[in-house]
């Protein structure tokens, strides 16, 4: 049966537009503009400005990932426990915003957060002091959480709904209290979802250049902004590729983590 050869179109496509392009990044990253082999594009990450952008990106995306987890886990639990998570509702709530353009949605936070924006006006009415987080790291974190929270909730929700109710009931019957049931039964069983949620939030947050552009003003540069500028403004593809290779190390680590947990699950 030659059915497996039907994979050929996809394999060729993936080879041409996934694997070879990744090879191009490695090629450009390891050569200079004359084509001579060099490590300088990768070592450029240690220059003060690039290092600052990388550390800032790591810091902000770590904070966002932790906050997404803290906000998203209870939400996933509520969705799974009330049965509202079954079927269309979750998809409706989380996929629907994507039909309003991602840039416009993020831009709208400017209107909400501005000095004379909606939130400060509301706070004023309530007699509370105004907040000023626009064009700061805080606004970028908020934008990251806003955009990537669904990627945390959906995988956790999937692994929570797979948990057999009888296992939870058995733990209760055997005398475990609410906390014990959560920490010794539910949480360990949902770890695969948590890990895939963490990677699905951390990677896009770490590499974003749009959110920092829209909500951080033009002063805050993340590593994503640096790379984007190398490609679209400076035109130094070699340096841009070298810096991307540094990012790919983070991506690779998260891919391997996901793979390992995937295998354990299967």
């Amino acid at each position: 049966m030659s059915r497996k050869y039907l994979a050929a179109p996809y394999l060729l496509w993936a080879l041409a537009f996934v694997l070879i392009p990744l090879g191009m990044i490695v090629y450009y990253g390891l050569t200079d503009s004359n084509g001579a082999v060099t490590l300088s594009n990768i070592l450029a990450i240690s220059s003060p400005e690039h290092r600052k952008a990388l550390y800032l990106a790591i810091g902000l995306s770590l904070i966002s990932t932790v906050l997404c987890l803290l906000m998203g886990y209870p939400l996933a639990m509520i969705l799974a426990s009330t049965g509202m998570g079954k079927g269309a509702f979750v998809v409706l709530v989380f996929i629907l915003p994507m039909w309003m353009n991602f840039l416009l949605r993020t831009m709208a936070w400017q209107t909400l957060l501005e000095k004379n924006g909606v939130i400060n006006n509301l706070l004023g009415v309530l007699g509370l002091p105004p907040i000023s987080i626009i064009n700061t790291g805080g606004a970028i974190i908020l934008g990251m959480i806003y955009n990537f929270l669904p990627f945390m909730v959906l995988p956790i929700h999937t692994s929570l709904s797979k948990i057999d109710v009888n296992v939870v009931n058995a733990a209760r019957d055997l005398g475990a209290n609410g906390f014990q049931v959560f920490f010794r039964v539910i949480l360990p069983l949902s770890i695969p979802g948590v890990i895939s949620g963490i990677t699905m939030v951390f990677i896009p947050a770490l590499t974003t250049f749009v959110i920092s552009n829209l909500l951080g003003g033009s002063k805050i540069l993340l590593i994503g902004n640096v790379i984007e500028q190398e490609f679209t403004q400076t035109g130094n593809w070699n340096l841009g590729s070298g810096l991307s290779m540094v990012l790919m190390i983070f991506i690779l680590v998260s891919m391997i983590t996901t793979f390992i947990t995937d295998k354990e699950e299967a």
Partner: protein
Amino acid sequence: MKKCLQRTYMGIIFIFLYAPIITLIVLSFNKSKTRAKWGGFTTKWYIDLFKNRAIMQALYNTLAIALLSAAIATVIGTIACLAMTRMKKRDRAILMGITNIPMLNADIVTGISIMLLFISFGIKFGFGTILIAHITFNIPYVILSVNPRFKQLNHSIYEAAVDLGCTPVQAFFRVVVPDIMPGILSGFFMAFTMSLDDFVITHFTKGPGVDTLSTKIYTEVKKGIKPEMYALSTIIFVSVFIILLAVNLKPEKKEK
């Protein structure tokens, strides 16, 4: 008490997710051209929108790319899933690994990698390059939603159809396809949504003069977004909301 707390928490998250969307809908009726001030109610932007040829062209490009890329990705992805049912475990694992690359990779890396490919082979940037890039990141969404359906498929039904005189192709279209249809549809829908909402990959693979709504908005950010854009996204959002509501409420009623 517990239920009340749960409801409140859901409510807060809901407000958080939808506050910007409501803001944009409100802005689409704002007479004043700047975001910062409310200048009174108007429907002017909804009329101007249809006269704005640049926005209409961007809308056309966006929809054409989303539709074409989702359709092509659905065909390639479904065929690949069919092939995987007959593969050895190791081959299948390799193919799924490749499938995971665009899913887990950062958009910016996917975008620049495809851009470098086009530059190296001297391919002219334009509609076609965006389309290729979108098909590439859409195929994994299709595979991930079709593949589980193939796993659930009862293989003897296909064999029964062949025994009863169907050619393999007939058997595939008459027996297998109806069974995996929900997976194909949700894969297509996911792919379409992802393509529509993408900015980063389009940003790196588009040519001068070709714009999708996302790239058009991005260039407008610095100059100030045209209110027609708010009107357009409100129309898109509200129509999708109504369609999804209609589609999702129907089967529930039947069950009752």
